């Protein structure tokens, strides 16, 4: 037993020792060697030092943003080149964690979901100086701030909005959202749409429901956390009205039940794109997907628009509160010193108005709030052109989906289980919320 334990410590120590020894040298071996060779050649001519950075990306065929940013950066700074390493999109976080842990990660590390930042910060460079130099209107920096230090630069900022199918509203004879909706109005309209559209069928012969809320816990809890309460409080009674409303919508048949969604693996893209629902609460990343799918035929052709998310009451409708999160770029702490400057320049570039316009040109909502960005975004083919849609993306308070904190992942797990228990009616609402609160104290680090 004793020998076994010392063996364990030995191997672990060995692995750790190897890990530390590998710090300076192992990151990006081939390119590192190449760039130093080029460095010596370039120094003699006093031209800017060429540097090649490696960057992670995913689904490069369908996610053009990585190539766009890399090319744009190279065009503005010809001495810098970026090589993209492709990762699996659905397991990106897991794979990057493994690569960071083994010291095999590339120089530039995209942050797909902001919630990883607390844990990953120990393997990332502090880029507070880059953040301080960003334009004041760049959104999402807060989501990357841990103990006062910033660890990534946001280049996209998605927020949750209400998508609606204008054609279906017209068919039902109901006016489209006016941007002043409260949750009560939203729920009432969802029911009314369901009743009025009961005789209609979607082109693929399915019944049409008033609205669609996907199975993710954030479709409900994200709004509750942003508009009504604090996830770190350990008291989740503020979610009760949100759940009561949705359970009522499920019962009335005005929205697909969570049980049906999960057991049939329904996708939100099909639900809205194939007109099985007249409304859908979704993140703004869906703008690009919907226009692309309408162009390809994967989604039906219909007129649509977006409106701000419904509010608790009328007091916030002039500057609506919603939730969302940035997509950003961080720097691997094991980057070699001669590449750091280039990497920081890239982080500054991606949050600039120039990069923002380029991103808007492929349908992404950039972190930059420059007015030209919104204009470019809505100039894209297939995008709605009404003023309310533009308002929904330019005027709002976006609270983080996952506030930074050590225990956020544990709390999300607890609340995720509460979500499925409530939505399938396996547990009564009050009991499930109370249980989540108790577990937040016992397992989620809430004191």
């Amino acid at each position: 037993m004793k020998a076994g334990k010392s063996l364990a410590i030995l191997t672990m120590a060995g692995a750790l020792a190897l890990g530390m020894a590998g710090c300076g040298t192992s990151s990006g071996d081939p390119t590192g060697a190449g760039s130093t060779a080029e460095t010596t050649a370039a120094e003699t001519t006093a031209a800017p030092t060429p540097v090649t950075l490696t960057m992670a990306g995913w689904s490069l065929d369908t996610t053009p943003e990585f190539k766009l940013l890399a090319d744009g950066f190279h065009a503005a700074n010809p001495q810098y080149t970026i090589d993209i390493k492709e990762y699996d999109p659905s397991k990106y976080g897991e794979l990057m964690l493994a690569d960071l842990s083994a010291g095999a990660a590339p120089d530039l590390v995209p942050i797909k979901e902001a919630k990883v930042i607390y844990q990953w910060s120990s393997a990332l460079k502090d880029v507070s100086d880059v953040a301080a130099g960003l334009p004041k209107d760049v959104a999402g920096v807060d989501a990357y701030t841990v103990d006062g230090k910033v660890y990534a630069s946001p280049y996209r900022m998605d927020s949750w909005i209400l998508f609606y199918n204008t054609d279906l509203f017209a068919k039902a004879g109901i006016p489209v959202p006016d941007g002043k909706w409260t949750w009560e109005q939203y729920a009432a309209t969802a029911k009314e749409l369901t009743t009025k559209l009961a005789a209609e069928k979607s082109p693929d012969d399915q019944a049409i429901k008033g609205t669609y809320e996907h199975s993710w816990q954030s479709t409900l809890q994200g709004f509750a956390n942003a508009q009504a309460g604090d996830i770190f409080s350990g008291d989740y009674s503020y979610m009760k009205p949100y759940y009561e409303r949705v359970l009522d919508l499920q019962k009335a048949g005005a929205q697909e039940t969570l049980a049906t969604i999960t057991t049939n693996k329904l996708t939100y893209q099909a639900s809205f794109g194939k007109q099985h629902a007249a409304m859908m609460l979704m993140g703004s990343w869906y703008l690009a997907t919907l226009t692309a799918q309408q162009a390809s035929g994967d989604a039906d052709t219909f007129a649509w628009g977006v409106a701000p998310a419904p509010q608790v009451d009328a007091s916030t409708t002039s500057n609506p509160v919603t939730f969302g999160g940035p997509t950003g770029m961080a720097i691997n702490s094991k980057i070699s010193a001669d590449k750091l400057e280039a990497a920081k320049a890239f982080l500054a570039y991606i949050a600039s108005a120039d990069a923002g316009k380029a991103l808007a040109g492929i349908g992404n909502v950039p972190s930059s709030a420059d007015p030209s960005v919104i204009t470019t975004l809505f100039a894209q083919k297939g995008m709605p052109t009404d003023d309310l849609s533009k308002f929904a993306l330019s005027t709002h308070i976006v609270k983080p989906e996952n506030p930074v904190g050590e225990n956020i992942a544990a709390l999300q797990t607890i609340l995720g289980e509460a979500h499925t228990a409530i939505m399938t009616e396996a547990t009564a609402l009050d009991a499930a919320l109370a249980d989540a609160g108790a577990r937040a104290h016992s397992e989620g680090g809430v004191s």
Partner: protein
Amino acid sequence: MSTSPASPSDAHPTGMVASVTEDVVSTVQAVRVIAKRHTHKSTSWWIGRVALYALLVVASVAMLIPFFWMVISSFKRDNEVFSVPVRWLPLTWHPENYIRIFSNSMAGGYSMTNWLKNTLILAVVVTFLQVLTGSFAAYGFARVKFPGRNALFLGYVATIAVPWQAYMIPQFILLTKVGLSNTLWAIILLQAFGAFGVFLMKQFYETIPEELSESARIDGLSEYGIYWRIMLPLSVPAIASLSLLTFVNTWNDFLGPLLYLRDRNLFTIQLGLNTFAGDPQTASQDALIMTGAVISVLPIAIIFMLGQRYFVEGIATSGMKG
């Protein structure tokens, strides 16, 4: 089938197996006896046969329905794969998915043939190593008595209980440190030395009578000779099942290659086909996923079909006669 699996320990399951096996055994024996006597087949024999085939056909359909769904889904549009209620036939047929997946995989100079080649190399090498080292070690555990043997064997088996997910990161760090991540070697090492093969082969060696090895020993055969000349030839069905299972598991392994392989040229078929699935958060290409799944299942179905013929009565025991 019992629909209330809450009471496993009552007499029900045993009763079931009793009746099933009795039927089966009696059918088996009946067939054998009749075949031996060359008598003509009675009506009851024919009724039994027809009933048996009817049962097997129904059961086969039950086994294959998800596969049918998979095949049909591969002809749908991405947004039509999942629906309520499940729609069996596509609204419009899209055989071009099969062209799409090939052309997608050709983009950037990568090729599906390359992935098939990688997967085949992995599956063959891993199967070979697993069978060779597993059966070799199993002989040591089954037939050589030495102190600590049982404890060591127990340790082997018990490690199977640790889920790979629990130690994949330490293992990944280890293999990355020695420079093996992003190589096919990593996957070979990962799969080839499991305790599964050792355990399986040991159990089969124990069915081979000790007297056989004893007389071979008297004839002057070394332990290695006994392993090679007697044990291996007599354990063909065990080797066949170990090979089939190892081959299938290596072929279908997704998480291992996913964690270790970054270079597209090194991808396995499972990993490669999934690369085109798209980001599930934005635009998941579900029809393409199913297309890929169909393409990757067919080769192993064929290999299984060919491999199962080693499960023929007498193949193991034929060598023991005389």
